[in-house]
């Protein structure tokens, strides 16, 4: 049904989106907690920087990644020398690009869920003998779960569709960095690629719809678990 090239693009997209979502999740939780709970000097600046990928052209993010994480960039050269990790032109790099782009979306979703938590519940847990870490693990984190879930789904979907930063940072290499959007783009640039493009678009559509339905289902399960009808 699917051609080997389509399967390649599909599995690469899923791989990139899964890893970018998982890798970004702990940082997004941390940053969301900081933004929702902490008050410090320069908070709005920090908030602004976090949201940069939402407002900057993706190409600019791709360029910045190239400059910093490329083999001659300050972080990129260090990664290469110390761990032998090369991000540029690799699928790992594609995950990084997708993750950076999806980060603010995830932070926003999780932050909303943190802000929705009744602080009184944590105070109640305190009077019942729960220390800070205990409280976080048994009260705050479980109550954040709906936000974490919707943030993760959002980030996953956004990663599936990431184009600009990816093509700028890791280029368009079949089997390595050519995810679905890049494959669609390639098809549209190829003579007689119209049918291929249409097939890939249909695939992309199905994938997104599937993700949406799954998130609805999980969301309902989690809300029930949280005791909200």
């Amino acid at each position, binding site marked *: 049904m699917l051609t080997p090239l389509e399967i390649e693009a599909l599995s690469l997209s899923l791989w990139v989106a899964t890893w970018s979502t998982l890798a970004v999740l702990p940082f997004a939780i941390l940053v969301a907690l900081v933004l929702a709970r902490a008050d410090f000097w320069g908070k709005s600046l920090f908030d602004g920087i976090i949201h940069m990928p939402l407002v900057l052209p993706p190409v600019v993010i791709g360029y910045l990644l190239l400059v910093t994480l490329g083999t001659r960039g300050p972080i990129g050269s260090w990664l290469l020398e110390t761990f032998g990790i090369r991000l540029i032109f690799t699928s790992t790099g594609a995950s990084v690009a997708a993750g950076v782009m999806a980060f603010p979306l995830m932070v926003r979703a999780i932050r909303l869920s943190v802000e929705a938590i*009744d602080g009184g519940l944590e105070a*109640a*847990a*305190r*009077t019942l003998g*729960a220390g800070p870490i205990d409280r976080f693990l048994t009260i705050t984190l*479980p*109550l954040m779960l709906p936000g974490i879930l919707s943030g993760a789904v959002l980030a996953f979907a956004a990663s599936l569709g990431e184009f600009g930063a990816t093509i700028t940072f890791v280029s368009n290499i079949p089997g390595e960095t050519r995810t679905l959007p890049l494959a669609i783009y390639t098809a549209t640039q190829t003579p007689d690629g119209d049918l291929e493009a249409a097939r890939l678009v249909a695939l992309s559509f199905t994938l997104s719809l599937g993700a949406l339905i799954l998130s609805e289902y999980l969301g309902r399960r989690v809300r029930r678990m949280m005791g909200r*009808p």
Partner: protein
Amino acid sequence: MRNPPLLDVAIRRRQGSFDLDIRFQAPIQGITALFGRSGSGKSSVINAIAGLAKPDAGHIRLDGTVLFDSAQGIDVPAERRRTGYVFQDSRLFPHMTVVNNLLYGMRRVPERERRISLDPVVELLGIGALLTRKPHTLSGGERQRVAVGRALLAQPRILLMDEPLASLDAERKAEILPYIERLRDELNIPIVFVSHSVDEVVRLATTLVLMADGRVTATGTVADLSVRLDVGAILGGQEVGAVLDTVVASHDAATGLTALTFPGGTLTVPQLDLGIGQHLRVRIQARDVILALEPPSRISVHNMLAGRIVELGAESGPSRDVKIDLGGSFLLARVTRHSVERLELGVGTPVFALVKSVAFDRVFPGPSGSGSGSGPGPGGRNIAL
């Protein structure tokens, strides 16, 4: 020599433009009620005891344990204070079943320090059928009962209740009050109870701490404070009246009457379904007391108590409240200013107080702990005599 166990609070705290300056000591047996209008600082006081709000200065000691002392630099974190806190809005954890809510605090107490276990608490509060349910499926009254159970099972040294009944309607209140009475009578855990309801306070409290504008205006037993003319108005307004702690002395089957004794006299009331020796708190409203200079004859009123006027309250409109010493207990009578002049009532005047009606607020345990423990008495009934 060991001092009697005491809750000793002396704290100052500034919250915006509100200045809290609280000092009181209360015996920790029974229920201490913090009573005052909303905004008088009651909740701030129990938040400070729980460790959820830090006072600027002062100390909080509970039965010899220092929970907070600014001079010594002691501030025990809330999670190590072992104060069971029942919040007005119950604050059950929405993602846990009732039983996991109940066990949350208990699991955090070392096993050898656990004195209160799940089954008796579930039984005491009547929540056995709710254990596997989630909080959002419970009614307000059920939620508060679970919250009480959760606080109790955390093995608290003191139970703090912040208007636990305020969010409930009259029916739910009536449902939960007996359970709080049972806590007081059966578990022997000190309770600090915040309330702005006279009825609740009179029914539940042992010691009363009156608060206004962030200050303590008076501390004492309910009976003592109920007859203080300077604070009586706060306590009752139109319903100002003396609270008497009585003992059921005898039943007379022939007349269908029960005699209740109290220091300084006896009240005769229509027969009560209570055993001899049981303790009963009654309230006699000042407007239900008539004063006479001579014992009237040929009158339908049973209860005629001889006493002596010890204080006359300030004039308020056409009436004045008069405090009468019955020889051990006090009674308030509300009479007209005109009557005061006509009868030449003054401090020291011997009078006869005729009691028209009595309100029974509750059965409460005797000082020896030999009390009924039978739960709710004929609560809140007002009986004309």
